[in-house]
């Protein structure tokens, strides 16, 4: 099941990664090699096997509905690339 360059480009958009043509070619080759390697998973019979998403058999972990201090706004915004002191700023999103 080989991945085409178009498929890889579509995945790149889903992942929000810009790939140059050259990067796309290299990435397509590498992904195909890895995917081909990973295909050996299908050698394992998993007919009645439940997926294991998490190694811990724990459940019902909650916290109380109790206030904890929020960050002062200037601290919350301090690491942001672009702000106006009140909001995070992003390129225009016209909806």
């Amino acid at each position, binding site marked *: 099941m080989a991945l085409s360059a178009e498929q890889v480009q579509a995945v790149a958009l889903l*992942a929000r990664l810009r790939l140059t043509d050259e990067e796309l070619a290299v990435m397509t080759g590498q*992904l195909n090699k890895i*995917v081909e390697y*990973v295909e050996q998973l299908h050698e394992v019979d*998993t007919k009645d096997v439940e997926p294991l998403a998490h190694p811990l058999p724990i459940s019902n972990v909650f916290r109380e509905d109790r206030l904890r201090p929020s960050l002062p706004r200037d601290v919350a915004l301090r690491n*942001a690339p672009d702000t106006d002191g009140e909001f*995070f700023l992003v390129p225009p999103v016209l909806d």
Partner: protein
Amino acid sequence: MSGESLVGRTALEHLDALAKGELSARELVQAYLERIERFDGHVQAFLLVDADGAVKKAAEVDERRARGEPLGPLAGVPVAVKDVLCTEGQRTTCASRILENFIPPYDATVVRKLKEADAVLIGKTNMDEFAMGSSTENSAFQVTRNPWDLTRAPGGSSGGSAAAVAACFAPLAIGSDTGGSIRQPAALCGVVGLKPTYGRVSRYGLVAFASSLDQIGPFAFDVRDTALLLKVIAGHDPLDSTSVARSVPDYLACVEEPLEGLKVGVVREWLSEGVDPEVATAVRDAVAVYEKLGADVCDISLPHSKYGIPAYYIVAPAEASSNLARYDGVHYGYRAARYEDMIDMYCRTRAEGFGAEVKRRIMLGTYALSAGYYDAYYLKALKVRRVIREDFDRAFEQVDVIIGPTSPTPAFRLGERLADPLSMYLSDIYTVTANLAGIAGISLPCGFTQDGLPIGLQILAPPFEEERLLRAARMYERETEWHRRRADLQQAVAAVSKAG
């Protein structure tokens, strides 16, 4: 006592000397800072050395000791921390351009615990970007070198922390292990590294790579120091839903007690093909030590362990593709300088901010989760994950601990595996299964190659049996001298300049 005779000792030796008043915490940290100053230009273990902060903390410890105040269990001991743990007010980069200027307004829980234990946090260590790699060559900032041979990789992704201990830049270090990222560099750098059971140590403030696999763990020269550091960082954290509410045994107090009637399982599949002969020999010698100690040694099989790497390279990238979605140039971190619109800003920011390996894994994980491929890859990998876990469950019905090699080879040359991602992925062939199963594992020195490169022995134990793991490891360590060897940096530097 001169600085050079101080560095290279264990944390427990330092604590003893500090308690007896034979030296001050300031003198101690000064000795390490000098050593870093002298050699880290060659090793490049640190991304950030906090000399001022470390000296200040050491001075505070000295003052408090002078006043007779109670002190934490690591009072005055320098600890290096992998740059994957958030440190309040201090740059935390994950060795990535995308977080180059990120200053967290919070401490990771483990960092908080180290501070409360009065450790001296000496600096942040280099790593593979976002902990993705097995050589520390994927750092956006620098390449860390193996202190035993500066032309070789320290392993990874916690290569900076392993190298920092091996180079005697700190007696203790913290790393993170998602598929072997503590144990493999520990093996390649000739130190002890432990990956706790999933849920034993809080992940709060650990920059996530693959959330269901990541654990934080200690590096040290020997098993006793490892026990000391594990005790400090382990325990339940209300900020981490996946940290388990179980009490933490006093690992150090019991580590010297040998395990009566210990049953040791040797993994058949791990000593047959694909393993370097010198590594295999060293591991067999280690098995002989256990036999000599009266342990009941038998062969066991982990028939699905060979599917560990393929399962891991679906599960980990899938989680990573989601965990790393937040680096988008909006709320913190790098943002591309030029872009056309919102989507283009995302795409350029991430293209410019992430390195090649990170992009590769994001792509792989995105693909494995995407419509039409989820069942064939992601779901299949989760089922194989359970099968791998069941292999361990069966094995631990027969034996108390499992032993084998940590890494199929000793330290490899820098650049050697960079061009071929798959060859790099196979570095973790013996370590990933423990992460998939969520069990505990340790790597400790068990010999050296003819070229003088360290070899690591891996021991695995069932979930939450760190005490058993440490005691079993210490039984072996007490019979051997490997853990007392230190890399000779002066000679290593000379060897490189001679070759160059």
